[in-house]
């Protein structure tokens, strides 16, 4: 059978993540010291796991309401109120999803029609582009720059807007750069959008992970931006719950109603066990966040200091759990650098180019690892650079 004839050309046309081959090599190799993962090394705090177990023991094994458990939606609304000053009606403006990913997918599908342009600041997480294409939309990358601390500027945004622009993705705190957007940065963006019909999908999955006394500001809390913003949140990064697959979207009722429809047909409802665990997380998890954040901060300082000392200039990430050192001084492309490093020292980093063309010249090093692990990896990178010099 000629499957090319039967498969959807939009899907077959999606580039498989260019990095797949490199990832496969890393997975196969022995004794790899990886700084390559995008998930916490911590396990889900025990009291949260226990809440999931207790829900199973008491027989909570059925579907929940499509939108998610009412109690959970109420807790999500309360949380967004107390943390970010956002006001959402738990009955009509909150949707519990299978991870932040499904919320992003649903938001894009609810908003984007064929031919619409979706602005995506880059480097950024890899899903916005393909999901946009699945809706027939046109992804338009906006390269952010190291000299601006990888923040999106009003000027860059203005230059990217056309009469076809439908959605702006706001991926901050950012994977892979660790960049954040502060209030005045967001205000400048809001000013550009004011008076337009451009919608915003603000992917704030790393909202709790900010450092140096900077607290996350939600784009929806700026002026009257809430009316055009869908906020994406989740439990994976905040509470080390990646495997539970639970996230949410909050936004204006008319959009959330359509997203709920998509969710209802495609998913039914998010995992019940995870929803019960998430209630516990939102009610009693603040302390866990504080502890993990403190630990990430120590690691962040170690890794940034380490790369800078090795001569791989590393901008100070203020959010998420990634560092993004510049490897241009080696004269290699980021893929070359990562591949050679992997083969010669068995250290796995992710090429910055995996996150969009503007990531070229950088590598992503996650600090979801113990201090000892990070130190060992840095030593190996140091040896690698030494050998390059002497070669």
């Amino acid at each position, binding site marked *: 059978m000629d499957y090319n004839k039967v498969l959807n050309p939009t899907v077959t046309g999606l580039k498989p993540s260019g990095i797949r081959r490199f990832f496969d090599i*890393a997975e196969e190799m022995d004794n790899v010291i*990886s700084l*390559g*993962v995008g*998930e916490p090394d911590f396990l889900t705090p025990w009291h949260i796991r226990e809440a999931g177990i207790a829900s199973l023991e008491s027989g909570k094994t059925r579907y929940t309401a499509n939108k998610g458990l009412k109690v959970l939606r109420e807790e999500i609304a309360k949380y967004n109120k107390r943390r970010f000053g956002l006001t959402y009606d738990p009955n009509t403006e909150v949707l519990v999803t299978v991870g932040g990913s499904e919320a992003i997918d649903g938001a894009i599908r609810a908003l984007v029609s064929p031919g619409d342009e979706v602005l995506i600041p880059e480097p950024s997480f890899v899903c916005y582009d393909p999901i946009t294409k699945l809706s027939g939309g046109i992804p338009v990358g906006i390269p952010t720059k190291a000299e601006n601390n990888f923040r999106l500027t009003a000027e860059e945004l203005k230059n990217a807007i056309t009469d076809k622009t439908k959605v702006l993705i706001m991926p901050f705190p950012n994977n892979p750069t660790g960049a954040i957007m502060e209030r005045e940065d967001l205000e400048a963006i809001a000013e550009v959008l004011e008076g337009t019909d451009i919608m915003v999908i603000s992917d704030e999955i790393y909202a709790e992970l900010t450092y140096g006394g900077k607290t996350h500001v939600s784009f929806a809390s700026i002026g009257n931006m809430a009316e055009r913003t869908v906020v994406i949140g989740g439990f994976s990064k905040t509470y080390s719950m990646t495997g539970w697959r639970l996230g949410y979207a909050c936004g204006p009722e008319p959009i959330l109603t359509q997203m709920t429809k998509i969710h209802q047909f495609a998913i039914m409802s998010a995992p019940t066990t995870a929803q019960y665990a998430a209630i516990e997380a939102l009610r009693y998890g603040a302390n866990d966040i504080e502890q993990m954040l403190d630990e990430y901060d120590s690691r962040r*300082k*170690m890794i940034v200091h380490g790369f800078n000392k090795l001569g791989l200039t590393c901008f100070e990430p203020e959010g998420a759990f990634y560092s993004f050192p510049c490897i241009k001084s080696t004269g290699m492309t980021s893929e070359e650098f990562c591949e050679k490093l992997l083969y010669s020292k068995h250290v796995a980093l992710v090429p910055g180019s995996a996150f969009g063309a503007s990531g070229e010249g950088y590598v992503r090093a996650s600090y979801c690892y113990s201090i000892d692990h990070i130190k060992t990896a840095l030593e190996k990178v140091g040896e690698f650079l030494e050998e390059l010099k002497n070669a």
Partner: protein
Amino acid sequence: MNIKLLKLLSQNARYDLSDLAVMAGLTEDEAKKEIAEMEKEGLIRGYKAVIDWERLDSAKVSALIELKVTPQSDFGFEALAEKIAKYGEVESVYLMSGGFDFCVMVKGKTFQEVAMFVAKKLAPMSGVVSTATHFVLRRYKELDVVLCEGTGDDRGRMSL
């Protein structure tokens, strides 16, 4: 006083000074000075390894002793606590709320040795009304360190 340094040292007292400084956002000299000061003030009282003694054949025995006492009119619980703390066999002494007064952790080479210490030294002390000895049979977690087998890192090596 530097809370961040204290936290780091309580996680791992063997971090290199240079690493401690980086993680606490200090210069090496500053970190060194802070630590020396906290030692001098008695805020940092010592540095010890967390050892899984059960892996040795010559494992120690330890017991938690509940002590009920009569507080002395002049000194309350203090004098007695200080006296108990003087014994080398005693690892820690805590004043407790609830059904008894002092929790005393005692170590020895054998059960017999610990039992004899309680019978001959603790029980007869003036002011001690009663003792109850609970031997530790197995340690699963010691000073925040889990001693039983964990799950390890089961994450893949790469993910975006």
